[in-house]
């Protein structure tokens, strides 16, 4: 297995010649894509941002193909991106309404699972718990996984800075609960290593890598043996935890052959001290988006999540988002979202107007980030005259609709890209009465998951949303 992929690596490296290594990254990619001459795979990105939106500045005023982008979505209305931009109005995160608890925690745990939270703890702080089942990104990744590729990558931007519990996680492996939370990696250097450590930068390095990989595999084998040796001697709960650890080691072993051929992008240059520094939020986000682009260009994975902060995140946007920050003492994202008022209020106070303005600007900034990511994908040549953006769908989600009332109706979902023609695009859809479970079924079907008819809590799932499927 390893020998074969190594052979491929060498052959292809020779084919592309030393030239490929020296070429700028995207050119090298283009060269390879043309060489492959096969249609590129469909891909999915889910982008999460915290604390909801400002509905009146988010929702376009008319439906259909000719809608005018709202103030928040304006950055996505560039000539390049507007044809790819769909707005999904009216979808409810119905599973989050099933069980009451802390507004942000409830939304976060239903966000990608389509289920009410589990392991309910009736605390003095109100009910809390964990995501109750596999999340849609993991479901799709597991269903479509390809040997030698990472099933998915989970990238974060300061998701571990404030909370280290169910507030911090959007993805879950099969089964859900604390032991199956899939943590987003906040460090671009780690993500880079995960993606590219098995990608040689030259033939000589390739031979050395082959030996290293063989050695790493032997170590993991040995460690797996240690897990086996103590199996059956602990209580059920402890044993389940060790079993999970052992199975993750086997997964890691299977991933050691990833990256059979690719031109390597430069290593991110963000040092550890900056990973949790508030003011580096934009720089880390950019590095993570660059890595998603590089991973797709090299076809190392086909499913990615990008998580900006945690539920009820307290990010301070003042250093890079222009607003009149001097007019209120509240600096933190979550605090600002509470200082606002629901869009339905007709005569907001001055303080509420100020908060609404800041929230609008914050969400507009996130739209600019999404535009950066999408533009990046549009620069990757997928062959046959297509770009990676043509073959990708990016879904933008949040754990609540709006900050002040923590509602789960009218979720601010934005969809960018057409997923290889499987989704309609460029339209503002009126999806009143639809659930996000149904949306996820549609995405899974568009990605090509076989026999995918239901997802999450069946109470909230009736099937795909035909209106958005091409």
């Amino acid at each position, binding site marked *: 297995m390893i020998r074969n992929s190594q052979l491929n690596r060498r052959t292809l490296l020779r084919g592309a010649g030393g030239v490929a290594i020296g070429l700028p990254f995207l050119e090298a990619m283009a060269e390879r894509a043309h060489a492959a001459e096969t249609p590129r795979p469909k891909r999915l990105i889910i982008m999460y941002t915290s604390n909801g939106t400002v509905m009146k500045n988010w929702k376009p005023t008319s439906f259909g193909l000719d809608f005018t982008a709202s103030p928040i979505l304006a950055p996505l209305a560039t000539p390049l991106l507007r044809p790819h931009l769909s707005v999904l109005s009216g979808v409810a995160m119905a599973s989050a309404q099933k069980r009451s608890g802390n507004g942000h925690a409830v939304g976060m745990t239903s966000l990608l699972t389509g289920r009410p939270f589990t392991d309910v703890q009736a605390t003095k702080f109100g009910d809390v718990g964990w995501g109750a089942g596999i999340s849609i990104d993991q479901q799709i990744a597991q269903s479509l996984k390809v040997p030698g590729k990472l099933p998915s990558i989970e990238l974060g931007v300061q998701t571990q800075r404030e909370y280290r519990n169910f507030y911090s996680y959007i993805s879950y492996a099969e089964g859900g609960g604390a032991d199956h939370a899939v943590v987003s990696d906040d460090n671009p250097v780690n993500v880079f290593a995960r993606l590219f450590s098995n990608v040689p930068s030259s033939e000589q390095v390739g031979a050395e890598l082959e030996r290293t990989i063989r050695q790493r595999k032997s170590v993991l084998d040995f460690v797996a043996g240690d897990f086996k040796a103590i199996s059956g001697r602990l209580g059920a709960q402890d044993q389940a935890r060790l079993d999970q650890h052992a199975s993750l080691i086997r997964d890691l072993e299977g991933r050691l052959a990833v990256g059979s051929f690719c031109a390597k992008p430069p290593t991110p240059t963000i040092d550890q001290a900056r990973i949790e520094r508030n003011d580096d939020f934009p720089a880390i986000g950019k590095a993570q988006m660059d890595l998603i682009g590089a991973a797709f260009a090299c076809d190392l994975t086909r499913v990615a999540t990008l998580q900006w902060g945690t539920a009820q995140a*307290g990010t301070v946007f003042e250093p890079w988002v222009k607003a009149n920050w001097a007019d209120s003492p509240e600096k933190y994202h979550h605090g600002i979202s509470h200082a606002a008022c629901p869009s339905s209020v007709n005569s907001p106070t001055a303080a509420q107007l100020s908060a609404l303005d800041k929230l609008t600007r914050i969400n507009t900034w996130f739209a600019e980030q999404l535009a950066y990511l999408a533009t990046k994908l549009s620069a990757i040549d997928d062959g046959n005259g297509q770009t990676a953006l043509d073959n990708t769908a990016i879904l933008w989600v949040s754990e609540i609709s709006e900050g002040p009332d923590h509602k789960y109706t009218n979720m601010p979902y934005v969809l960018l890209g057409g997923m290889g023609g499987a989704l309609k695009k460029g339209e503002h859809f009126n999806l009143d009465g639809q659930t996000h479970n149904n949306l996820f079924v549609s995405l899974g079907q568009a990605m090509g998951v076989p026999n995918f008819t239901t997802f999450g809590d069946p109470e909230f799932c009736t099937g795909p949303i035909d209106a958005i499927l091409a």
Partner: protein
Amino acid sequence: MAAPSTSDFAFGKPLSLPRHRRHGAWILAALLALGCTGFIDGAGGADASGTAPLGNAAGASSSGAVSGIGGVAVGPDGCEVTSAPAAPLRRLTRWEYDNTVADLLGDESHPAQRFVAEADQFGFDNNAAGAVLSPVVVEQFEEAAGVLAKQATAQMPKLLGCDSSAQGEDVCANQFIDAFFRRAYRRALSPPERSRIHDFYRQAKLDSGFEQAISVLVSAALQSPKFLYRLEFGMPAPGTTGAVRLSSWELASRLSYLLTGSMPDDELLGAAEQNLLATSEQVLAQAARLLTSDRGARVVKNFYRQWAGLNDLTDLQRKDASYSAATAQLLAQETETFVDQVIRAGDGTLSTLLTAPYSYMNRDLATFYGMQGPTDERFVKVALDPQRYSGLMTQAGLMARLAHPGQPSPVLRGKFIREKLLCAPLPPPPNNVDATLPPLDPQATARQQLTQKTGGSPCNTCHTLLNPPGFAFEHFDELGRFRANDHGLALDASGDLTGTDADGPFADHLDLLKLLTQSEQVRACVVVNWFRYAYGRDQAEADACSTQQLSRAFESSGGNVKQLLLALTQTPAFMYRTATAPGVQP
């Protein structure tokens, strides 16, 4: 936490008061019956006189009321062990991992700081349930192990403790395997284990040569569950129902990770090997030794860093541009030095922690406070104005953390006292409440504005409990420095403490802290917090006896935290766990 305005709650289960709160009279009777001559008293008495070093605590104990428990299921202090609580499997925290590889390999690079953070439980990072498992986590273990192995084998003779060119590679490898894995796994290898490791070594040497084979051994050890987890199989404990007593090796790890945050040192491993942790006296003697050693400072500092949330100082946003990461470091260091000096070198009492009219500063920190005295970078004891300062609560670390960017936060300060000192947290505000602060009104103090904002229903239900203890600290600004007035307006730091066992009026923070010092609820809360930290889990029904024992030790030593720490190693909760599968010695 960076989102202080609303529901930045500490995640946790509702707190049930320790049993002795509910049965205070019973405990008092028990104390009288025992004549308060337990080992803790002996040690506490000796220590309070200031003449006996901590190490003597163990000596005192052997003549005290401790019963040995070889084969008899009776814990020290007469606690009968009928059944033991489940002790969930603990994985090394990032902090423990870093300490352990520093002790094991001499590596000071803190590789685990890059690992996924633990999930907070009750405000602590070391709860068994907080160890997150995820694909990234396993990758991080693998990567760190590879890097550590590479660095260790770069200094091969030092790692091996053997000259492979003179003595032969395989001879050195044999010695290395026994010595290294004993320390990495924190116990001696069994014969099948040893032969499996030898096979692995031979195969790796064939494949990539001697140096790589040693490197591979180190990497494998660091990823093994026997290194990463604190595996406890226990030994049969006659007379119990479903309980096992921990082996000497397992107790050595419990002692060492509790009191030094790291693997056992050579002396402790030696004691374990000779089964010299079989009685509570032996355990206590080692505990006292570890706590007095230099590494003993780690546990005290780590506990209070987490309890006070000092890690959050680095990330604070403050309008005052003079507040920097360097300031944060100084503030954290002040509180850490203070608690360590009081608990390990001083009288160790809760009362001193809350009321001491002194602290520890270096030149830069003194400059921050606008004080004089220290002349260089070293932290030295500094006498403070007792009309202003009182123990760790009035240190800038806590006061600055419990504040907003441009003003102090009475709510956060009151919340801290409720949660962390009284163990009586309040629920977060309802979701639909507008919890933002009013814009600053230069004509009114922050107190007046907050009182107006939270005075009505439904806010006042909780805020009558939260605001007063917070208002007591009005004299400390958002950087934690003493202030005489609130932007020119007169301050009012008085109030009424309600809903506690020490209710009463207070004039200011000095008064309030005196009230809290007399509170049995506060002392019980210290025990609860240390229980959770030490055992990595919450209290269970089966812990009633252990909790009583700890409370008694703490009460009878006059609220001495050092004695409480030693007592933590003497309970059934420390020495026993539930039996799982019929086990053989590993």
